[in-house]
């Protein structure tokens, strides 16, 4: 009996992180969408701190959960506006993704990508992004291009981080089943009215 209970508890704890994080993410999104930006930002901060603490203790789990949260956020959570600029919850998550990618050497979180075409795709994209960064810096410095437009460059970096992170997680942790399920359920919900702007 006790074994059974402990088994169920272990199984539940597997999903507890996802449920907690999703709840927290939903809070942030709903509050900020309702105009309570400061409370939303507070929750974002809380979310980031929780994420960092969890990452220190369970880096692999947090890495996988980050991807699930990103997909959930893209499909289901609404955008919010801060000083006239629109943000989405995945903009917070992408910061976490970058931090995880930066710490991967210490935790050896990901396996190296095996395919030559995929490697070339990653390297050429990085090359393009570096070129964009340099040309933007040059124009900000010499042609009076406003620094706020760096946001457009960050957007491209963000999509690249999505692609790279998801690819690494699917390849390293064989999570294609769950990612496939996410990709299965959310378009269906979107088709039948689950998506909000």
């Amino acid at each position: 009996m006790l074994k059974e209970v402990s088994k169920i508890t272990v199984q539940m704890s597997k999903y507890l992180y996802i449920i907690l994080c999703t709840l927290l993410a939903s809070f942030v999104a709903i509050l900020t969408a309702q105009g309570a930006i400061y409370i939303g930002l507070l929750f974002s901060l809380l979310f980031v701190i929780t994420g960092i603490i969890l990452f220190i203790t369970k880096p692999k789990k947090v890495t996988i959960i980050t991807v699930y949260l990103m997909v959930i956020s893209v499909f289901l959570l609404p955008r919010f506006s801060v000083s006239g600029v629109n943000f989405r919850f995945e903009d917070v998550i992408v910061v976490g993704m970058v931090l995880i990618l930066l710490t991967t050497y210490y935790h050896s979180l990901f396996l190296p990508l095996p395919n030559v075409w995929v490697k070339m795709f990653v390297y050429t994209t990085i090359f393009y992004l570096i070129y964009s960064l340099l040309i933007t810096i040059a124009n900000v410095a010499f042609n009076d291009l406003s620094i706020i437009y760096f946001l457009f460059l960050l957007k491209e970096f963000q999509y690249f981080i999505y692609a790279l992170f998801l690819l690494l997680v699917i390849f390293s942790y064989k999570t294609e089943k769950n990612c496939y399920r996410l990709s299965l359920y959310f378009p269906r919900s979107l088709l039948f009215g689950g998506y909000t702007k």
Partner: protein
Amino acid sequence: MFGFYGIGTISEGASSQSGGLFLVISLLFLYQSSIHVKNKLKLYFLFCSIISMFLTLATVSRTAISAMLIVLIIYILYKLLFSKLNLIYTFTSMVVVATCSLLVFKYFTPILEYVERRLVSGFDSGANTRQNKWDRLLSESDNIGLVFGNGKGFTQTLTGGFTLSADSQFVRLILEVGYIGLVLWFIPIILLITFALVHLKRYTSESLSIILLILAFLIMSVTHEVFLVTIQASIFWIMISLFIGIILNKKNSSSNSHEIV
């Protein structure tokens, strides 16, 4: 009731955005239809795909509809020429498609007439308006800017605000990163297509989905900045990574029975 720009709350406010979104969802359902073994599930996802295609049509986005037609023709041709046909599925799916088409023609004639008017007679005026806009935007940059680029966000200094209104991904790229940047931007896309072509024979569903997604996005890129719009671009990269990941994992798997469904 179907709105002018799509389906109200479940779509973006502009026709091209919701059109692009529904097109991606249609392709995703087509992929799901192709990977399932059971005919019942295959037909269910085919039906979902048809609904999504009809919603694409209802958005009246000319680019999304053109992309959808081209992508569909390629998909059907590939299936007819290179795939082993499942006779029961093929026959039943033809019945499903024919029934859906008949129902659509019977109950949604005004929308179809409107789509036809917009596609046929509105095509020239739409193309001319956009051509003039692109010429005007490109003329704002000097030659050095056109070759090396004027920096990310330069287009916004011409159009104002943060809304993406260059109405072409390619024009935006030429203005912001120049012809050099445009070539650099194309190289990863070509590499992705090459990756898909290399694996097309063995991992047909995933590879074909990668090719069709990229093709659809490149067509839509002609008239709007589809690689920058949050939802479309995010879904595009999520799906591309998912398909590549599935192919890599299938390749790495020691047994041939590694299936994701």
